[in-house]
């Protein structure tokens, strides 16, 4: 008996010495998007393109997962005064072609973004006066006026090498570099000299699958492990197959906006529409992934205020306001293609308040032009907050068309006080003070009934059970943040 015990023990010891075959850890992660990459240029400001390029390029400042500022190529920053910012750069960073990163690259990148003809960042950076190199790892940015959103803007400015002109060949400092690209497919490979934590996956395969059903089948078959833009109608099927569907606010608010020139110059009609409209469009048309809202600011964002009261549908009140307007009300509701059902519902709701609506569905280009020409009675309007701050909506949509302001003000809305508040907020560096002014503007424009906020949208991501990834509030999918469960 003693012999067999010894034999068993020996066998166990021996087997523990035999190298165990490691579980196969996949080296590639595949991510699918709804739209393909259309440009490798770091000067492109398209949100879709940036979802790809953010794996290759980096910025001075970046957002962390909770939308707070985090150091990236800049280790630290601060202001000498209201117009002078200094950024201390991270040493020992190299580009994917082996060249070192330093202040020259920052100066060149930002200057190019400000001045290059092809740059879509020019208006974003129009408040920057100049940028100077202080030493190899320090730059100063001078603004024309106090800019509380400078850091938000710099989050969108990719840094590339000085004298870099071939924007079709992206070379950044990020954790992945382009190994190959072919039509809608881009293969990235891990940059082994990356300054930060080395990504889990050696290879990242980014692909665009425009067809929703094909996107569904790709994630169900494990052809891709992460899926951006999950069609809401497929959520249940995906979850039943073990795919984790995560949603997060897209920082995009959809509203009905009034043209102040024309019939809706009468506030009573605007109030009538305000109270006639239902408050459940999000539930009816969003498959659960739209959130009703009563503010123009997206929730959780700078400028959002919980103090503003909820909108309640009240047809009687709507009729009461309608009755203060003499005569028939026949108006045209302009909506882009794809929102026909929503428009019909609005029409129905307004009919109850004796407002006759004709729905006009247009392609995006026609739709946009009509609005900016001030020719629409009232229209559906969606705004995405790229800077995570309500001030760019105020400056671009609410402010009267003066100078750089009001470029998307299709309402012809103009209020001197509101304009003044917007000007004031744009230069307030004190966060608390600025928040107060933004809240004041929000309250004011709601009171003025410039439009009716309807809902804000959520983005859906599908994540296969073999990987671990927490979605980012800024909507980026960084392959370097995805790890496999085989860790």
């Amino acid at each position, binding site marked *: 008996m003693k012999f067999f015990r010894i034999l068993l023990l020996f066998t166990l010891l021996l087997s523990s010495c035999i190298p165990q075959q490691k579980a196969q850890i996949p080296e590639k992660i595949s991510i699918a998007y709804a739209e393909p990459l259309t440009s490798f240029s770091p000067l492109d400001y398209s949100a879709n393109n940036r979802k790809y390029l953010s794996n290759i390029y980096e910025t001075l400042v970046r957002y*962390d997962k909770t939308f707070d500022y985090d150091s990236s190529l800049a*280790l*630290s920053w*601060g202001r*000498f005064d209201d117009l002078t910012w*200094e950024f201390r750069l991270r040493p*020992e960073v190299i580009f994917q072609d082996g060249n070192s990163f330093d202040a020259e690259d920052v100066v060149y990148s930002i200057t190019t973004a400000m001045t290059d003809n092809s740059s879509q960042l020019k208006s974003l950076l129009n408040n920057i006066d100049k940028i100077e190199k202080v030493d190899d790892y320090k730059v100063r940015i001078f603004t024309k006026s106090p800019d509380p959103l400078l850091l938000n803007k710099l989050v969108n400015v990719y840094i590339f090498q000085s004298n870099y002109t071939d924007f079709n060949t992206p070379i950044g400092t990020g954790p992945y570099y382009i190994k190959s690209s072919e039509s809608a497919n881009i293969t990235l490979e891990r940059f082994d000299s990356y300054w930060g934590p080395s990504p889990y996956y050696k290879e990242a395969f980014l692909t665009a699958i425009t067809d929703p059903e094909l996107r569904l089948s790709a994630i169900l078959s494990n052809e891709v492990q992460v899926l951006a833009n999950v069609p809401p109608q497929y959520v249940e099927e995906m979850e039943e197959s073990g795919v984790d569907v995560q949603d997060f606010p897209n920082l995009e608010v959809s509203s009905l906006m009034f043209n102040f020139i024309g019939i809706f110059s009468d506030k009573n009609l605007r109030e009538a529409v305000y109270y006639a409209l239902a408050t459940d469009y999000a539930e009816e048309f969003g498959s659960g992934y739209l959130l009703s809202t009563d503010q123009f600011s997206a929730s959780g964002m700078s400028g959002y205020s919980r103090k503003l009261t909820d909108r309640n549908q009240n047809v009687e009140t709507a009729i009461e306001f309608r009755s203060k307007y003499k005569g028939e009300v026949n108006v045209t509701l302009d909506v882009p293609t794809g929102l026909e059902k929503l428009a019909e519902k609005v029409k129905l709701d307004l009919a109850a308040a004796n407002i006759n609506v004709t729905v006009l569905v247009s392609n995006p280009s026609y739709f946009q032009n009509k609005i900016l020409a001030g020719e629409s009675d009232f229209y559906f309007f969606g705004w995405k907050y790229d800077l995570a701050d309500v001030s760019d909506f105020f400056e671009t949509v609410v402010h009267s068309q003066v100078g750089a302001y009001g470029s998307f003000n299709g309402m012809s809305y103009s209020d001197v006080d509101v304009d003044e508040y917007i000007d004031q907020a744009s230069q307030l*560096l004190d966060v608390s003070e600025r928040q107060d002014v933004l809240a004041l503007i929000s309250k004011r424009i709601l009171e003025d009934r410039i439009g009716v906020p309807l809902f804000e949208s959520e983005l859906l991501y599908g994540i296969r059970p073999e990987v671990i990834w927490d979605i980012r509030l800024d909507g980026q999918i960084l392959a370097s943040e995805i790890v496999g469960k085989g860790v």
Partner: protein
Amino acid sequence: MFHSLKAKFTISFGTLIVLLFTASGVFLIDAKSREITADIAQNSLSFAHFTKNTVIANYQQYLEPGDFVSFNRELRGLLQRDTDITSIGISSYSGLTLFDSATEQNAQYTGVPRTVPDQATLDRIQSINISVLLRTGRVIYLKFDSAGNVTSLDVNEKPMDQIGPSDRITNIIVPIDNAYSIVYTINYQSLLTRLALAKYQISIFTIIGLVLTLLVSFVLSSSITNPILDLKRGVLKIATGDFESRVEVKTQDEVGLLAQSFNIMAQELQVSTKALVYKERVAKELELAVQIQTNLLPKDKLVLNGLDIAGGLIPATEVGGDAFDYIKVNDNQYITYLGDVTGHGVAAGIVSSIVNSLMYSFRSQVDLIEMVKQLNDVLRRKISQKVFVTMALTLWAEDSRTLTYANAGHPPILYYDSATKKVIDVRLQGMAIGMLEDVEKLVKTQQFTIKPGDVFLMYSDGIVEANNPAKEQFGLAKLKMVVQDAAIEDKPAEIIKNTILSNIIEHINGSEYLDDMTVVVMKGK
């Protein structure tokens, strides 16, 4: 002093307690110090984190426009909430000192612009992360992630060792609003105060512990040494011969058991001493008895005209049961006898002495049978009936050269006939004296005419029954041979006697004498 058990006990325990308390105290103080140091660090960081906005808000609201009094009041109020923070300073991003509560207690500073002293401090002010300067000079930047986890980094965000439990912070710099930094200076006076209190308390406890230990060890050691001293006194008393001395120790411990053992020992000493004294007395009396008995035996050979007589006795114990004598009846007649009382020792010696005395007193009878009768009568009446005497008797008549032999239950005498040069046993009917009434009727006599060279040998059974170490008896045959060899050589009776006895002793060769060994040799001449 150090020979004393009490002193050893007290000093040992006292030293042990002091060492234990000291070691515990050092350990506790160190642990407490680390705990408080870590608490101060944690509290200071939390204080800095939660007050930074208030400090800047107050600065912008009051001090920047010039209202030092209000700002100072607000700041002092903040400082009172955390006494570990000694001062709060505000710097601009450029490194300009905007305020320092340590130096601006009553009025705002208005002198030459103050700047931070070194690049390292400027780096900290211009960082986006909170940083701490340790007393060791190490600077640690603390980066908080979205989950609230803290990473310790250097100025270039490279990982470094985090703040240790015993690290003391000189100051904390908290950047705020991308334009300012607030400097919180830490002091550890509260730590020192609390540690001093802890040390004081531990010292008090150590002293109390020491005193208690000394008391307890003194009492404990006394409980051990006092009984031992009692034992010592008892031993000394016994040493003086007072065996009646006892030690009163009522404890149930080992010392009590030792005292009980001592008392038992004293008691047994008392008994054995009495026994020893008795034994000595008995030995003295025995010695006297031996002396008396020895005096009763003939001291020398008897040389007569026609007969030489020599006898010898080797007792088994100090006092023997054998007896022999040569008794002159008259100028012509001599009685020679050899008697063997049953047993040996003092009792047998007493009886043999009585027999010796009686034979002497009965010598006038001249009749051996009559002598046996009278001896038997006396022994039957005066001596225990379990005691009897075997005896060989002879009566020598000089004029006729006749030897009359009687045997009362004794081994037969040996007769060496000088004519035949042979030794024979002379067997004769007889009964031991004292065994029966009228034993004389069972005793016969035989008469011999002694020629020159004839040898008669009376012997006790101890002679033939003497064992050597191999438990082999001397035996009758060997006795006869010895007698024959000695008689053939015509040795005198004395020599023959000595030869026999020396042969016996040689045979015994150190073995125990189990019985008295007696021989009487009579040789005709």
